[in-house]
């Protein structure tokens, strides 16, 4: 398959402007008749649904939570990037673009990333107008802070709850459209398939999670803003309900899945404490502005109380190895460094899988009050979970799965290769390459939803103005509905002996051990076999209580896990295909003497877009070559 990225020709800074000037439009009288389904109500989904509603389209929006306000974007803490250059520190759209391309280890498209940097400034304007209470200075103007992988202060924030405030902004815009009737909201609904008629996306099959009823919904286009797939690891910072199902169903209907092995392991999470653990909690990257990461120089000091270890016996390893960026190196680099020092046996805490994040220097320099103002709620959260006071004792942190850069393949218009099917936010693969910079997920979700998709979708819908409303009695809907029902019954009828969680924990362990922070050919091959066996056992031996015609959370979990069991194998296949180390994908075989990632631009400068062949073990690889016209490919260095 020839993959056309559709990036417009011309100078980097002109592409988006030219595109917008020439893109085809849909007249207001036609918009009223055109229906769009948006699945997901996070930053991308809610902002897209609201904006499409404002434009006059007929929108249906779906979320599995009890309210659109609860999507997991709400948990993002640190901030959102924008090239406003309010700090006069030399920032610009080009610099944000360059930092993102470099941070992504040269595995993303120049055109998409520059557009993201351009619209970033509009996002801040929009959010402020909606009443998002960003942090401000005494003059009443907006404040900024720094984040990892960059040397400017371009991150806007609302305490440690930026995601919450941005999502509530998008939710308020969405609520306004729901009130005026342009968006119809379906809470507690889960999309279980996408319906294609004559090769175009024409609707979805959704399950009402309260009654169990299977519903058909038709539209002229379907937009997936369904987030990432980090929960394939069982333990992650994702919400319990975050899942790949919508994206995976789209994949099985023909949409390509790109770079699935690019997963982000966030360096600053609260370490695992016991086998009962259900999820991991992130401590915002913003903490690395003032916190210093260290472990003892000597193994024998690891069990000592940290405050008893004198300065000269501490190894501030990030500052030592990466003097230019210090504690603010990008996430992949910081996570890998933590893995190395703990592998050396210098990890701390009960399990030995933790490093210290120490605020004592900052508290001495700035005072406890200022630190409390900046990070108070994060410190409280840490205190509650661990029962330790981080103002007095250094935090213990360890990397955890946080974000997935991979996702559905989309072109410049955010369209998948299935006409009429779009993917936005974390659900697509587009902007972060092999590693995402901090505070860029919120930026991308809102860029896609507010400013990009509502423009680009016109290019497709302009040809659909004569298309009548989709008939949900079409055989394609009946077939898809039957398949969904059959699968649910099949799951319920297995009546085996193990719970869904038993299988999920087992899958998570395979993925973390063999396709986690570092991967190796041999382990990956082993993982393929283990996942296949686990999947076969799941379909023979899972037990799901209750039936399909009621509120049944175990049934929901089982359906999601069945998809993770297929996705996991694709991630491993992708990791095996990519014989290089880049960003979050670190292959043990491809590293320098100093242990840094070694990229292979000659052979792997491509997007790996996988097609579904009908057998999850035999995916088909399609490649989109990445051309770099405007930046020079360099070895990424933060030293």
């Amino acid at each position, binding site marked *: 398959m020839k993959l056309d990225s559709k990036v417009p020709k011309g100078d980097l800074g002109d592409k988006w402007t030219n595109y917008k000037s020439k893109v085809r439009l849909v007249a207001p009288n036609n918009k009223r008749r055109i229906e769009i389904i948006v699945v997901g109500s996070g930053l991308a989904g809610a902002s897209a649904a*609201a*904006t499409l509603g*404002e434009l006059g389209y007929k929108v249906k929006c779906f979320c599995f*939570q*009890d*309210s659109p*306000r*609860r999507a*997991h974007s*709400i*948990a993002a803490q640190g901030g959102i990037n924008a090239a*406003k250059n309010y700090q006069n520190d030399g920032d610009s759209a080009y610099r944000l673009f360059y930092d993102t391309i470099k941070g992504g280890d040269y595995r993303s498209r120049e055109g998409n990333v520059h557009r993201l940097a351009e619209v970033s400034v*509009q996002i801040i*304007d*929009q*959010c402020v*107008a*909606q*009443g998002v*209470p*960003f942090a*401000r*200075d005494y003059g*009443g*103007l907006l404040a900024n802070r720094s984040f990892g992988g960059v040397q400017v202060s371009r991150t806007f924030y*609302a*305490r440690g*709850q930026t995601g919450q*405030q941005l999502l509530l902004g998008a*939710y*308020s*815009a969405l*609520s*306004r459209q*729901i009130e005026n009737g342009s968006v119809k909201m379906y809470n507690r609904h889960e999309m279980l398939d996408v319906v294609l008629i004559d090769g175009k996306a024409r609707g979805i099959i959704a399950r009402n999670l*309260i009654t169990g009823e299977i519903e058909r919904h038709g539209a002229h286009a379907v937009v997936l803003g369904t987030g990432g797939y980090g929960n394939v690891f069982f333990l992650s910072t994702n*919400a*319990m*309900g975050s899942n790949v199902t919508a994206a995976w169903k789209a994949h099985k209907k023909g949409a390509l899945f790109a770079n699935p092995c690019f997963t982000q392991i966030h360096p600053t999470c609260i370490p695992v*404490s016991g086998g*009962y*653990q*259900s*999820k991991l*909690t*992130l401590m915002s990257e913003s903490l690395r502005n003032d916190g210093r990461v260290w472990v003892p120089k000597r193994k024998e000091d690891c069990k000592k109380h940290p405050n008893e270890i004198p300065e000269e016996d501490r190894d501030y390893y990030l500052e030592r190895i990466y003097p230019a960026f210090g504690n603010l190196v990008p996430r992949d680099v910081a996570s890998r460094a933590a893995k190395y020092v703990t592998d050396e046996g210098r990890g701390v805490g009960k399990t030995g899988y933790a490093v210290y994040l120490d605020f004592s220097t900052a508290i001495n320099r700035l005072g406890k009050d200022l630190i409390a103002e900046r990070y108070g709620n994060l410190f*409280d*959260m840490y205190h*509650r*979970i661990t*029962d330790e006071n981080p103002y007095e004792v250094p935090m213990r942190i360890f990397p955890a799965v946080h974000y997935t850069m991979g996702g559905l393949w989309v072109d410049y218009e955010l369209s998948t290769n299935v006409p009429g099917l779009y993917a936005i936010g974390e659900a697509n693969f587009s902007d972060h390459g092999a590693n995402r910079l901090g505070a860029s997920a919120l930026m991308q979700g809102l860029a896609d939803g*507010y400013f990009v998709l509502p423009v680009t979708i016109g290019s497709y819908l302009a040809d659909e103005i004569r298309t009548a409303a989709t008939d949900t009695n079409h055989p394609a809907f009946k077939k898809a509905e039957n398949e969904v029902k059959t699968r649910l019954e099949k799951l319920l009828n297995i009546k085996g002996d193990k*719970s869904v*969680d038993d299988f999920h924990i087992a899958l998570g362990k395979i993925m973390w051990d063999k396709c986690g922070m570092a991967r190796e050919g041999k382990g990956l091959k082993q993982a393929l076999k283990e996942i296949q066996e686990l999947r076969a056992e799941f379909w023979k031996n899972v037990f799901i*209580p*209750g039936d399909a015609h*009621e*509120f049944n*959370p*175990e049934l929901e979990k089982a359906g999601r896990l069945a998809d993770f069991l297929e996705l996991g194998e694709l991630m491993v296949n992708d990791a095996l295909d990519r014989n290089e180390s880049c960003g979050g994908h670190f292959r043990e075989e491809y590293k320098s003497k100093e242990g840094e990632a070694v990229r292979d631009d000659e052979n792997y400068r491509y997007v790996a877009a996988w097609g579904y062949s009908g057998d999850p073990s035999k995916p088909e690889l399609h490649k989109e070559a990445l051309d770099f016209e405007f930046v020079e490919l360099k070895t990424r260095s933060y030293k």
Partner: protein
Amino acid sequence: MKLTLKVWRQKNSKTRGRMETYPIDGIDEDMSFLEMIDVLNQNLIKEKKDPVAFDHDCREGICGMCSMFINGEPHGPEKGVTTCQLHMRSFKDGDTIVIEPWRAEAFPVIKDLVVDRSAFDTIIQAGGYISVNTGNAMEANAIPVDKSIANEAMNAAICIGCGACVAACKNSSAMLFLSAKVSHLNMLPQGEVEGKRRVLKMMKAHDEAGFGSCTNTGACSAECPKEISLSNIARLNRAYIAASLTSEESI
């Protein structure tokens, strides 16, 4: 730890519920309350019984999904936390713990501990927004906002919409929830323009949704996991009276 759990079980909104007793063992004090419920559910599944349905998602205190009434208090005994942030170290070995859903007419039970809180969405849809279409915005720094005002707006905006205020209130009033949103938006210059309309419309939606009236007992604020201040209700009342007397528009 060994505990006795008394849990509300109700198959759906149409059937009557009852309390069921479950002994549970092997609970670690570092577990969160929801992880303790996970253990209970895994035990029930192993016995081929129906696990306890409960709402939960982010498990870090921000999504507002979890909603358990524990020993007579929304989100349990600790101050300023949601159920997912409550840890078993707050209980003693041998304790009996009573777990119920939010109880309010406006929050009907869906199953066991899961309730329908869409009435909160209805209140927000009535006016919990600033009317600005995408693309309409002016330059972000064009209107400076006093730092203390921005802070106070943020203190109200941190509401997670969990419904603990309603569950705590003897009148099942949602005035704390409503007033937090009105305060957040009306205090900011961007939101002031449609302030009167907002307060009138949202108050009307609140009453129509079946929430009770406020009698200023303060239980809502005391039980709020985000410790939202009662002064928001005072601010709301002032705004409501002023808007009722001076609004050009009838709502």
